[in-house]
């Protein structure tokens, strides 16, 4: 048991517990705050995987923007006190069964994958992930098209969301 493994187990425990609280807490603002904790845990997992840029972007985009948007939306749609009612629908046990089955199935499938328990090679010295990412996102042989298409996607999302939320009948 090395230090890295202990850190991983702590992070994974925090993440999964927070994720569990997201889907079970009855107060929606609490659920959103637990989501923040889970997202932060995922950011730490990224940091553990040496993907520093992705970890920071996770905090900026998810915690800084998406979680804030969720909290705003919850505050806007809470006219009656929903917090104390039943939070699950009548088919919740089917959902639980499907979730457990999907977890079991995923683990079963992954376990037959031959690289399942391989370990990572050391990162070559002088490797700069952000630089490589810049290369990949801008070179025509890389991912220029997804890069530009993502911009169009976000434009479409903005236009659609503005139209939907604020089109006065």
């Amino acid at each position, binding site marked *: 048991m090395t230090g890295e493994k202990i850190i991983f187990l702590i992070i994974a425990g925090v993440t999964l517990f927070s994720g569990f609280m997201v889907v079970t807490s009855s107060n929606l603002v609490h659920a959103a705050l637990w989501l923040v904790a889970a997202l932060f845990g995922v950011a730490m997992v990224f940091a553990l995987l040496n993907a520093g840029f992705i970890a920071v972007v996770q905090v900026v985009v998810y915690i800084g923007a998406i979680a804030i948007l969720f*909290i705003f939306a919850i505050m806007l749609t809470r006219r009656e006190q929903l917090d104390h009612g039943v939070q699950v629908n009548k088919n919740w046990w089917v959902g639980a069964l499907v979730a457990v089955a999907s977890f079991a199935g995923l683990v079963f499938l992954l376990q037959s994958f031959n690289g399942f328990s391989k370990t990572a090679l050391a990162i070559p010295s002088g490797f700069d992930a952000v630089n490589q990412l810049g290369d990949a996102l801008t070179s025509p042989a890389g991912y220029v098209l997804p890069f530009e298409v993502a911009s169009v996607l976000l434009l479409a999302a903005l236009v659609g969301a503005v139209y939907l939320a604020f089109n006065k009948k």
Partner: protein
Amino acid sequence: MNFWSDPLKVAADWLTGILVGWGMNAVVAHILLAFLGILMLASILMVLDIFLVWLERKVVARFQDRLGPNRVGPFGLIQPFADIIKLLIKEDTTPDGADRVVYNIAPLLSMMSVLILWAIVPLAPVLLGVDLNSGALFLIAAGAIGTLSIIMAGWASNNKFSVIGAFRQVAVMVSFEIPMLAVLLIPTIFAGSMGMNTIIQKQDIWYFLLSPLGALIFLIAAIAELGRAPFDLAEGESELVAGYNTEYSGMKFGMFYAGELLHAFTFGGFWAILFFGGYRFFGLEKVSPFLSIAIILFKALIGYWIIMWIKYTMMRIRIDQMLAFNWKFLTPIAFVLVMVTALMNALLRDASSWLYITGMILSNIILGWVSLEIARLVSKKERERVEGLKQPALSKAEGVVEAHH
């Protein structure tokens, strides 16, 4: 390699030697020492924070033609310590119906979001903290945690003023994050890296001279991010009491207050790092790390002073004006500036450095001038429109006056 030229490494080696001599694992000793070092840095920052309270009160007194604290100790220097003792022995009240856990976590997060910023501040060429290769984004990430703490504080207090204050503050903070992100691209383009230390190392000529407009936009966005005047509508006293921290008392309020002051000082430091060469000052940084620390702290203090100057000179802006100013003026300019800078950088890269600098400055000045002219034109039209609406009523009143004559 002596203490004068690299104090941190000498001290760390010496202490590691002692700890390993006691039979401690080298890795554990390293982590323990890093922890203690960070604890020391954070404690120094908190002491500095106490000093900043005194400084702010003295400076604001001068701006308002008063003396400021001058009774306790020489120049009133003991005054902030007396304030802290008061905060420590105050009763800590929690309002009815407050969400206790969230209510108590919020001040911790608020302070933490400021302290972690110092992880990426390079104090000297050898005193780095961490040279993160996504440093510029780390700045925004820490700001995101601060935003979250404000929402938590406002929501958990179960107070209408707190909630409204928090939401206004957050709306402003997130809005001004966009121009800030955009102008952070500019030092990144010049230095070819997001790491704070690399940005300083590459800054043979201050980026302020290459992009004065960018530096200005960064300062404005930073003040809005801090929630200080003229962007302090969360604590519009006449309408919202004290904003999101209305229900906080004692040390928990102290954390929000101290966090704000330290945040202002920290942003002064980042302004210096990104646009004024950080710890570099005509080669003086090569003499000793101690001199570098003095230089960067001095530059940060100047930045802090400018933030204070603006705070005590300008009046508060209304929220609609503030958001309009951001989305209709600052954000478009910031993005156009990024495009112009990228283009000029690509075109003039191979030209002589004088041509490069002149081109950059000229493009900045022209862009600033054109946008100001456009803003002036639009506001003139707007004024005429508003006056046109008033016209019928006015002419009627004039008619009455004429009749009297």
